[in-house]
């Protein structure tokens, strides 16, 4: 038996959290606990890079599979990765150390508890992307609610209680139906093992209902219009680091779930409901872009832009084309990096000036030139300028959409323009113009740790924007395999009808 590398990847942050529990909390500025957390998360990042290195990119099979008896007779603990999940795992392990470094600025009280919460959160997030059993997936998917609830509730802003409750209850409500569906799948097919389910397939008559049950959970988590309303609240009230985690990784769980479960397990239902997803995605793209345009709060604006970007993702996934799905995955990774960066950038000025209202700022370019540069990169990344990751994702998605439905693609393209509008307008109002607010003049430019975190994000955004090959290589085989299975099932189904 090989070394259980995935389980160690999942468990390492929890073990780190245990260590932090025993570090001193009274002396100094809580340094020791922070270094332990940073060390653990960096170790995890290196481990995941190693995983990417040894990972066979030409194979569409699940690799590093671990299969252990867990709930005797029912369910096995099964984890494994393919080309899609590895990227999300790396995204998670990459974002976590950045979060831990930026903890400096935003978290003043109970730092130790906060670090523990983040590390536990990392465990659950990696678990979601690794799990190859529906019950194990559900376990990780739901368990993430606990640390996130605490992160928003304890360290959040003024209306944190309301937001934390809304976040928790919305997501839980969506997920319980998925639990029903998972158990139903168990009794229909006799297993919840994803690989086996791919082979066995699920009878057509059950697919629609099961698809809807899964959809209810993923739609809330994505979030899709009209169940997106928890997201702006959660983002605005969460501490900067919480917003980063939420935007960069938590939202991706649902997109990942769509590809792995909705498409993989219920191909016929996915085909039936394509139009529904298109319409909801288009509404998300257009409507939330318009809403974003009118926001006065920077965080809220970025939150709404997240909804719009995730609208592109769901649209891309359900085009069921190679380009569309690859674009969606790329868009998710890109959004993970860009939105994390944007939230951190907002955190930078918020920490100095204690407000997120756009009209309190202006003319930052003359006070904080370095900040203006990185913020510009992120803005351009968010609006999808060629040369940034955002462009490749949106471009591929639109390509896939044009192939399937021109009208949908045209409306979605409109979203790209709107995206450019709200992002550029935000940039103009915050960075350019005259300094109206004299208090701004005392603001200092980026500190060292901010330069580290923000440039750590600039590099991949630009690098993969110019050279997307490594990411594309990784996902290509798996996406192709997913699509082949999907088309195979569709053809079979048509054949059986005739």
């Amino acid at each position, binding site marked *: 038996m090989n070394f259980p590398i995935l389980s160690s990847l999942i468990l390492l942050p929890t073990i780190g959290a245990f260590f932090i529990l025993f570090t001193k909390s009274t002396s100094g500025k809580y340094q020791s606990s922070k270094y332990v957390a940073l060390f653990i998360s960096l170790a995890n990042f290196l481990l995941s890079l190693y995983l990417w290195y040894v990972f066979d990119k030409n194979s569409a099979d699940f690799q590093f599979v671990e299969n252990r*008896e*867990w*709930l*005797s*007779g*029912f369910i096995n603990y099964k984890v494994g990765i393919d080309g899609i999940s590895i990227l999300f795992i790396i995204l998670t392990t990459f974002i976590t150390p950045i979060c831990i470094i930026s903890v400096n600025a935003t978290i003043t009280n109970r730092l130790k*508890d906060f670090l523990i919460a983040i590390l536990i959160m990392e465990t659950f997030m990696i678990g979601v992307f690794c799990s190859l059993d529906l*019950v194990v997936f*559900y*376990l990780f998917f*739901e*368990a993430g*609610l*606990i640390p996130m*609830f*605490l992160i928003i*509730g*304890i360290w959040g802003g003024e209306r*944190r*209680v309301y937001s*934390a*409750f809304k976040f*928790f*209850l919305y997501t*839980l*409500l969506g997920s*319980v*139906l998925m*639990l*029903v569906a998972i*158990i*139903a799948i*168990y*009794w229909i097919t006799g297993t919840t093992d994803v690989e086996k389910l791919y082979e066995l397939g699920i009878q057509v008559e059950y697919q629609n209902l099961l698809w809807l049950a899964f959809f209810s959970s993923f739609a809330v988590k994505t979030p899709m219009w009209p169940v997106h309303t928890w997201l702006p609240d959660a983002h605005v009230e969460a501490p900067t680091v919480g917003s980063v985690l939420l935007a960069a990784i938590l939202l991706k769980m649902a997109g990942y779930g769509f590809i792995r479960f909705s498409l993989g397990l219920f191909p016929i239902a996915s085909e039936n409901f394509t139009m529904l997803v298109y319409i909801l995605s288009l509404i998300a793209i257009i409507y939330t872009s318009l809403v974003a345009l009118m926001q006065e709060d920077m965080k809220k604006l970025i939150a709404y832009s997240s909804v719009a970007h995730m609208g592109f993702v769901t649209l891309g996934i359900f085009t069921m084309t190679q380009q569309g799905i690859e674009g969606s995955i790329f868009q998710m990774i890109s959004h993970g990096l860009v939105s994390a960066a944007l939230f951190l950038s907002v955190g930078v000025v918020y920490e100095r000036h204690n407000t997120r209202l756009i009209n309190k700022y202006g003319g930052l370019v003359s006070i904080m030139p370095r900040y203006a540069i990185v913020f510009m990169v992120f803005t351009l990344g968010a609006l999808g300028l060629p040369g940034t990751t955002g462009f490749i994702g949106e471009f591929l998605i639109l390509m896939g959409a044009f192939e399937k439905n021109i009208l949908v693609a045209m409306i979605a393209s409109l979203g790209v323009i709107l995206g450019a509008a709200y992002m550029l307008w935000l940039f103009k109002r915050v960075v350019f113009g005259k300094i109206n607010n004299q208090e701004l003049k005392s603001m200092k430019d980026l500190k060292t740790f901010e330069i580290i975190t923000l440039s750590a994000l600039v590099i991949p955004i630009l690098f993969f924007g110019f050279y997307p090959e490594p990411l594309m290589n990784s996902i290509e085989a798996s996406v192709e395999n997913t699509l082949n299975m999907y088309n195979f099932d569709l053809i079979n189904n048509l054949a059986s009808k005739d």
Partner: protein
Amino acid sequence: MENFQYILPEIFISVSIMLFLLVGVFKKNSANLIYNLSNISLVILLALIINLSSLDTTYLFNKSYLIDNLSNYMKIILVGSGIFVMLTGSKYIQVINLNKIEYPILILSSILGMMIMISSNDLIVFYMGLELQSLALYVLASFNRDNLLSTESGLKYFVLSALSSGLLLYGCSLTYGFSESTNFDQIFINSTEFNYGTTFGIVFILVGLAFKISAVPFHMWAPDVYQGSPTSVTLFFAILPKIAALSVFIKFLYTPFANMNDQWQTIIVFISIASMIFGAVAAIGQKNLKRLIAYSSISHMGYALAGLATVSNQGIQSSITYISIYLVMNLAFFSCLFMLKRNDKYYENIEDLSGLSKKHPILSFSLLIVLFSLAGIPPLAGFFAKFYVFLAVIEQSMYFLAIVGLLATVVAAFYYLRIIKIIYFDPEKEEYEISHNLGLKITLAISTIFILAYFIYPSGITEIVSKITMI
């Protein structure tokens, strides 16, 4: 006499009760002594029962008493939780001046009554056990006799419980009248054909039992009694009678009335759904923690009954697993309550928990774990309890029950979250004295670790429970 060993635990505990009573009468100031002796006798009792579990299924006293896997398992968790109830409450009853010789003796007699209930295989034996446990419970509820609420709760419990016992007896006599026997197996054999008499009998018996388990719509006593009784007695109420009543439920439904499942299944489904919803909704507005936990236990009983409604072994096993995990969660929750002491006064309002996490991080972390577990959030033990139940429910394609049940968990999550919010998000209050009672700390530690680490080896309880087959 060759069957003597089977009944040994019951004989042992009866003898202990009488002995302790004598000691209490003739030796002055022996309350502490008897309390400790009772605890020791419970441990011995547990050992005796575990010793029995290796033996085969046996009928005693002309088939009116049954020792089998179900009764053994139920007795083990019953007596086991009895020990922990005594351990956690010892400091509490000293502080509020309830340390009298009657207290442990009443608890022991109540446990004896429950053991008889669990093992009974005859209507008369069953009723005897039921009354023994109830009479002890009436007194326990009003044990704090100088307290208005406590006496009120005792009286309320007595009146309502007597009413339900009356209904139960009426049901028993109807059943006896139409099936010509009081023996469970004989009733099963004689009640193959449908007749209204037995159906009425079932309904009345179920009403009586639903009252004991505090399922909606026979739950009215629970909040008042939970709130009024001394907290140690509330803990007792929250766990032990539920175990006994649930095993009697299983016994009634699957031995004498097993043939009539189309008659009682709808009733159980209704009671279960009503309890889940009502328990979840009514708890939202509560201010008192004991009252809140009363509503929460109502809804938990709804889930336990949902397993029984499936008419399958899987369902029965899931219910038993559910109650086993439920009792651990309650033990942990009440252990936390016993720790909220300041200047010899215990606090039991939700507001008293405000900002607890700043001064008492470990205690609040335990509460956090317990509350999320009660809400059924993975990966804690409470999730697995619900998971097993819904696994069984969906196996029988009872999707409506499953979906309503799971939606009720979302509603219930709200009030558990509210407590967490008060502990973690609200401004802090005065510090509590952390009680240095060892029994309390051990109980809290064991139960919290159980809840937290359950997911590492979740098949432990299920493997034991899977030996229990009724159908």
